[in-house]
């Protein structure tokens, strides 16, 4: 064992686990790496817990069991950089959530299955404690068994708001309402139905009805109020372009909101992989039918190639794992049904993205002093001033007014600043994908040896 794997997979969500498993079963020596201490990614977070009704958990649990018997698994390993080596790639990890032991894994091929994060929009008060992203509230519930609040408003756009609202209500929260900024498609026209997921759509509908949760289309939370924590929100009825028409107040201690997801693609971008614009405008890794990125030996699957949910992520992961094995000379019989399934799910994802776009009218919700960048506390007025000083694009605004220069490196506000200056969001250029202490950086020369005992 030289310590170099055939394939390193980053991300243990549905895409990464399916990819790693398919590659193993096709004969590759695989290592799967995830920063979290347990597998599952965002969808299957806490999948091992009983009473968790996440559809597909049992199947995921079987995949996980089969995989751990065949592949190396490095949980609690955050990948902060990836580099080309002579004949493959070096994956720089930090082990542990506080100790940060550096560790380098080498592999001939890489599969990025790093998922996505919520896409929040700014509005006055969006940084008040008690305002959470919808995914954040879901993560608290699924992963930590913590109900995000007592009286909760759910808002934003997209079908993801429905499982968030019903999950919180089932866990005992008083969900005051679900405010969908786009039109609330009647169940009969809902894209879930056309994708053959009628039971899922019906389940959410029943869940909302059982808990008497109002579900309103063309409504949004446009302001959050409170002194040191959230006490109420302003809900607006919107026109088709999302400009507010009429407002009212809803009392709540928690807001869970999100306007879709942003794929996390900084690692493939570090290697020079080409990106393309996804259906919702966010940059995604450009891949071929075998999930091959533009850099030979690099594959991407799941949300990194376009937001599409867990079933598509799994199908893409399998395609990627099989392509990686075939490209490394293993015999992999064709599986046209899998490609058809991925194509069908991906068409469904594109239909959803078109049904739940982000419309420009949200910019009317902002005031001069509304923070655009939470980290550097950059208000809208500073962004506007930078533009009046001649900043033509998001990058120039960033240099002048510093939005996106703080801890989160623009993850929360990059798309916002781009929209404010009329740009499309750019692929993220972050040489360091995870915070690293300076000592670890110095230790990580490309020749840094494996710790004794090799990567297992």
């Amino acid at each position, binding site marked *: 064992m030289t310590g170099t794997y055939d394939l390193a997979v980053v991300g243990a969500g549905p895409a990464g686990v399916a990819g790693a498993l398919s590659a193993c079963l096709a004969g590759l020596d695989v290592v799967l790496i995830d920063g979290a201490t347990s597998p599952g990614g965002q969808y299957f977070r806490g999948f091992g817990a009983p009473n968790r009704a996440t559809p597909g958990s049992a199947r995921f649990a079987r995949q996980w069991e089969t995989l751990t018997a065949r592949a190396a698994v490095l949980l609690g390993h955050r990948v902060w950089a990836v580099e080309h080596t002579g004949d493959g790639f070096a994956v720089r990890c930090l082990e542990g959530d506080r100790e940060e032991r550096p560790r380098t894994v080498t592999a001939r091929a890489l599969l990025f299955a790093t998922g996505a994060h919520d896409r*929040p929009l700014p509005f006055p008060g969006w940084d008040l404690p008690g305002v959470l992203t919808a995914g954040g509230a879901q993560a608290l519930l699924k992963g930590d068994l*913590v109900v995000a609040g007592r009286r909760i408003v759910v808002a934003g756009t997209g079908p993801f708001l429905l499982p968030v609202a019903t999950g919180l209500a089932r866990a005992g929260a008083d969900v005051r309402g679900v405010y969908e900024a786009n039109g609330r498609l009647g169940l009969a026209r809902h894209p879930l139905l056309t994708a053959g997921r009628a039971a899922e759509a019906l389940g959410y509908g029943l869940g909302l009805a059982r808990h008497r949760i109002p579900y309103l289309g063309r409504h949004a939370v446009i302001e959050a109020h409170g002194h040191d924590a959230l006490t109420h929100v302003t809900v607006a009825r919107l026109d088709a372009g999302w400009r507010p028409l009429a407002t009212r107040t809803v009392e709540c201690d928690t807001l869970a909101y999100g306007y879709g997801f942003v794929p996390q693609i900084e690692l493939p971008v570090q290697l020079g992989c080409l990106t393309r614009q996804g259906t919702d405008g966010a940059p995604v890794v450009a891949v071929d039918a075998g999930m091959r990125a533009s850099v030979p030996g690099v594959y991407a699957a799941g949300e990194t190639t376009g937001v599409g949910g867990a079933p598509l992520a799994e199908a893409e992961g399998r395609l990627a794992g099989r392509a990686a094995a075939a490209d490394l000379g293993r015999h992999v019989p064709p599986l046209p049904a899998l490609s058809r399934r991925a194509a069908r799910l991906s068409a469904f994802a594109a239909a959803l993205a078109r049904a739940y776009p982000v419309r420009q009218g949200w910019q009317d919700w902002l005031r001069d002093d509304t923070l655009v960048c939470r980290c550097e506390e950059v208000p809208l007025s500073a962004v506007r001033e930078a533009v009046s000083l001649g900043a033509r694009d998001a990058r120039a605004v960033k240099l002048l007014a510093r939005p996106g220069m703080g801890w989160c490196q623009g993850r929360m506000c990059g798309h916002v600043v781009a929209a404010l200056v009329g740009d499309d969001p750019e692929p993220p250029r972050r040489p360091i994908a995870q915070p690293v202490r300076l000592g670890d950086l110095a230790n990580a020369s490309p020749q840094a040896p494996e710790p004794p005992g090799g990567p297992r």
Partner: protein
Amino acid sequence: MRPVDREFEITVDGVAVPVVPGQSVGAALHGAGIRSWRRTRREGRPRGLFCGIGVCFDCLVTVNGVPSLRACLTEARPGDRITTENER
């Protein structure tokens, strides 16, 4: 709820807070009704959890004297001492 191993405690500014094994420091605080534990540098705005998955860096916290850890990603351990920037 998960039939879990026994709960343990951490302290937040000296006050005990219960933790279910596996919970993050941020989840334990949020679950105990502590919504913020940090103040921003410029305007002193209170901050706690926002993204919940380690991308926004709002939830930075000091654990056992180690500053700037993401509370949402840091799994709580028995006896952890959390210090906040909240007024006491």
